[in-house]
């Protein structure tokens, strides 16, 4: 290990623990991109930091924690869209088929769910999708959205005529051709005129900060 790496190790230890301020952390990240030796060092320090979790005295969690987790998991979620009602479920199935094949189905069930087509925006020109709305609940069906980089997520935005934006939630895609994600629709939905999806840091942002991948017109 040469002298440069020795001196730098203090920064790496701090980076592994998360104690560096953003500018210094950014400098470390830039260095790591080109330095496998230092990446290895950071990985080892991270593992060491993990060991500190074992230094803590064990306290049993309340039994309701597991019960709450399992209850949440068992509620109908992404992939299981019976909660939307038969009409929307048929629409979703139709749309997935539509996205899979260039043939547009001539007949569509005439149902209450509203379907809004979305087009790829500058950060994902080949992506496409649909927002499906029924009874104040929303589903986003996407095609061609890559898995976001580590530490980032997609975030849905509803935009009003004054360009104010409200978040419809975040999601991460899996490496599959299509995805279906739940969207939180704002209660004053008729106010909004456009919808967009951007790339944001994990956990989401209060306002869009990243590039846009999908967009659509609501009214």
């Amino acid at each position: 290990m040469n002298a440069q790496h020795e001196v730098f190790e203090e920064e790496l230890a701090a980076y592994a623990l998360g104690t560096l301020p953003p500018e210094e952390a950014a400098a470390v990240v830039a260095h790591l991109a080109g330095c496998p030796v230092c990446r290895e060092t950071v990985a080892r320090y991270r593992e060491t930091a993990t060991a500190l979790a074992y230094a803590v005295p064990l306290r049993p969690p309340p039994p309701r924690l597991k019960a709450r987790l399992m209850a949440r998991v068992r509620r109908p979620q992404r992939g299981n869209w019976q909660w939307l009602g038969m009409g929307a479920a048929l629409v979703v199935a139709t749309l997935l088929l539509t996205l899979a094949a260039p043939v547009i189905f001539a007949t569509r069930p005439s149902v209450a769910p509203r379907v809004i087509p979305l087009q790829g925006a500058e950060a994902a020109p080949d992506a496409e999708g649909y927002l499906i709305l029924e009874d104040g609940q929303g589903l986003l069906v996407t095609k061609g959205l890559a898995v976001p980089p580590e530490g980032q997520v997609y975030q849905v935005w509803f935009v009003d005529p004054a360009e104010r934006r409200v978040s419809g939630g975040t999601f991460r895609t899996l490496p599959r051709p299509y995805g279906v994600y739940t969207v939180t629709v704002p209660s004053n939905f008729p106010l909004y005129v456009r919808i967009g999806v951007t790339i944001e840091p994990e956990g989401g942002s209060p306002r869009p900060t990243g590039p846009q991948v999908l967009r659509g017109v609501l009214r």
Partner: protein
Amino acid sequence: MGDPAVKEPGYADLDDAALLMRIAGGDEQALAALYDRHGPRAFSLALRILGDPETAEEVVLDVFWSIWQHAGTFMPERSRFTTWLYAMVRNRAIDALRRRRVRPPRAYEIEPESAEAAAADPTVEALAEAEELSRAIREAMAALPEAQRQVLELAYFRGWSHREIAEYLGEPLGTVKSRLHLALRKLHDWLAERGLFP
């Protein structure tokens, strides 16, 4: 099957990566098994950081919910699950700490080996490994010079930056950085000598 006290049979022999694969496929029992194995320690870490069991509960619920949703993105060849898990718990607990301004607990005191078996119930092998690691890390912490241990605790359990630690202790920034580095390196070497990693 909804009884929270019942342990998931059959899954205890699968390692974390195997459980995660099943979770990615929507297997709820695999998630329950993963929670049985790691939940208590995750809760204990959150509690140590926050000092408040209600918030600790929310953090752990949030983390395991994320695991449920993102299990498919975990790559076992790049990292251990426990590294990922405890990093998530620590990060979210520190976020919650900052948001709620919960008063952090007093300085960590090294506890004698207690009856940990009551809290966790993984496979016999995994339990022995966890106990061994717990013992080793506590010995390692006790062996650190007080000044180094203090800096490490402030960084890890409170999530403070160098600047915040230096201000709190009234020490120069460079001193804090070097103590942190020395502490982490000593812990690493101690664990490596004993062939132990989380």
